[in-house]
């Protein structure tokens, strides 16, 4: 009866008997107005790129060799080290990328695990997730200079937390941390350490933090390091401050799109494998051994990071880092020559901090200020000429 009714519909009858009946409509061509909008957006991007000096994004890259992969619905669902039934994945490349980052972070041989994330925030979320699973009653300590997304993660994961004061240079106030830990020594501390704060590029001193934990004889603790930008700088400089696994870090988050450059946000989460394995056992009850945060995961960004690491090599990254550091030094000198109080955390930092510029400068240059300060980050395509123009604009606006 139902079949007869359906066949009575002229449209369905035509569909059922047409020898070339398309299952779906052909896509409509974009209108002239649509094209104009896209052209305008492209022009806006192109114009903004050289002025975007306040955000940590290397915008100099060429991934055209990978464009052909955009015709596939690739997906890296699941643990990159466990395989997947979905064959259109780049797990093999992802494993190589994670291994490279693990090498740079001097992760303990045979005792690390990681995956390519959607960016630094997911890496931080992963690290704090591992920490919470290991220490359900733990208290998270983080400085007031920590990126605002961390407060969101703590709320999302329902983790108890206390903000620690920051020093004027952007580092944790170690006296405040010590006194706070002393009073709460019965609660496992989960330290969220900044290896390069967003605004000042400041690096929390892991040696001091470890020393405080040891002095107070705190038996159980966890340190997660947010090394979003610096995680790909510090492996390539001499006399780097403590920042990684050999320095007592239990998990790390590093951004992929920041120093290396990538059109799609991405990053790396790294953690000690023995801790991840403990979590894997604890989540078995949900029937999934996959401990990554997302279900479907980007398969293109691992390919891009792999391409970038292959084409730059260690020497190429080292050159890139040196170029950025040189420019940061140049920017400090140039701004100071204009009587602008510019500074950076240390000789390795590519974040140059200065007083918040007047509005005309803020309108022209793409800068993210916070209260009374602002910064620039010396990543490509920035050149000395870019810095000269910015410093001249800044100085002119003050006079």
């Amino acid at each position, binding site marked *: 009866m139902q079949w007869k009714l359906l066949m009575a519909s002229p449209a369905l009858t035509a569909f059922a008997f047409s020898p070339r009946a398309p299952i779906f409509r052909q896509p409509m061509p974009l209108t002239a107005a649509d094209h104009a909008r896209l052209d305008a957006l492209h022009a806006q991007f192109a114009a903004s790129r050289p002025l975007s000096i306040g955000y940590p994004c290397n915008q100099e890259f060429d991934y055209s060799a990978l464009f052909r992969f955009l015709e596939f619905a690739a997906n890296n669902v699941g643990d990159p080290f466990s395989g997947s039934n979905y064959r259109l994945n780049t797990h093999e490349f992802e494993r190589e990328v994670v291994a490279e980052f693990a090498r740079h972070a001097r992760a303990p041989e045979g005792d690390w695990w990681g995956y390519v994330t959607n960016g630094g925030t997911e890496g931080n979320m992963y690290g704090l997730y591992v920490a919470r699973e290991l220490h359900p009653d733990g208290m998270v300590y983080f400085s*007031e200079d920590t990126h605002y997304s961390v*407060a969101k993660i*703590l*709320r999302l994961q*329902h983790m*108890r*937390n*206390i*903000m620690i*004061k920051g020093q004027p240079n952007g580092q944790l*106030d170690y*006296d*405040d941390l*010590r*006194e*706070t*830990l*002393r*009073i*709460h020594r019965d609660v496992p501390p989960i330290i969220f350490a900044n290896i390069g704060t967003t605004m000042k590029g400041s690096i929390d001193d892991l040696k001091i933090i470890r020393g405080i934990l040891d002095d107070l004889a705190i038996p159980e603790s966890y340190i997660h390091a947010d090394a979003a930008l610096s995680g790909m700088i510090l492996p390539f400089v001499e006399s780097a401050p403590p920042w990684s696994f050999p320095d007592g870090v239990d998990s790390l988050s590093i951004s992929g799109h920041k120093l290396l450059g990538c059109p799609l946000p991405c990053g790396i989460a790294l953690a000690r494998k023995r801790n991840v394995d403990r979590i894997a056992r604890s989540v078995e009850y949900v029937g999934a051994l996959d401990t990554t945060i997302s279900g479907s995961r980007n398969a293109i960004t691992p390919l891009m990071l792999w391409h970038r690491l292959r084409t730059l090599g260690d020497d190429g990254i080292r050159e890139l880092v040196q170029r950025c550091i040189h420019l940061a030094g140049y920017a400090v000198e140039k701004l100071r020559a204009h009587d602008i109080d510019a500074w950076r955390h240390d000789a390795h930092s590519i974040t140059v901090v200065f007083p918040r510029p007047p509005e005309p400068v803020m309108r022209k240059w793409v800068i993210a200020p916070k209260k009374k300060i602002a910064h620039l980050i010396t990543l490509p395509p920035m050149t000395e000429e870019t810095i000269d123009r910015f410093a001249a604009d800044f100085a002119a606006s003050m006079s």
Partner: protein
Amino acid sequence: MKQITVLTRKDPAELIRVATLLGDAGVNIESMDAENIEETGLMVLSVDRYDEAVRALASHGLRAVTQDALVIRIADKPGALAVVSRKLSDAGVDVRSMHILRRDASESLVTLVVTDQDKARAILADVVVRN
């Protein structure tokens, strides 16, 4: 009637600014208490349209604390937050989060999210800056 705590610069003009922007958003202010703590202006507002007020304040770059959190003022010295936290946990109140809102020369303003706000308010009566 719900309350919002707003942080501003220490400037009498900020009072007018807040009142004006809330009025423009169609929010009636039922009551307003204002005080200065060092370089920070602090207003505690009771409003009729709570969500609209919070949105309007945030869209104008003002720090608005909803009544889900307690606001306390404490000395800006090492471990000061931990002392408060310990006092609460000893009384059976679980502290979910303690965030520094603003630090001036000798005092800090801090938001506190706890499991039992009434009990915490009573314990911290001497430092709570909201009613």
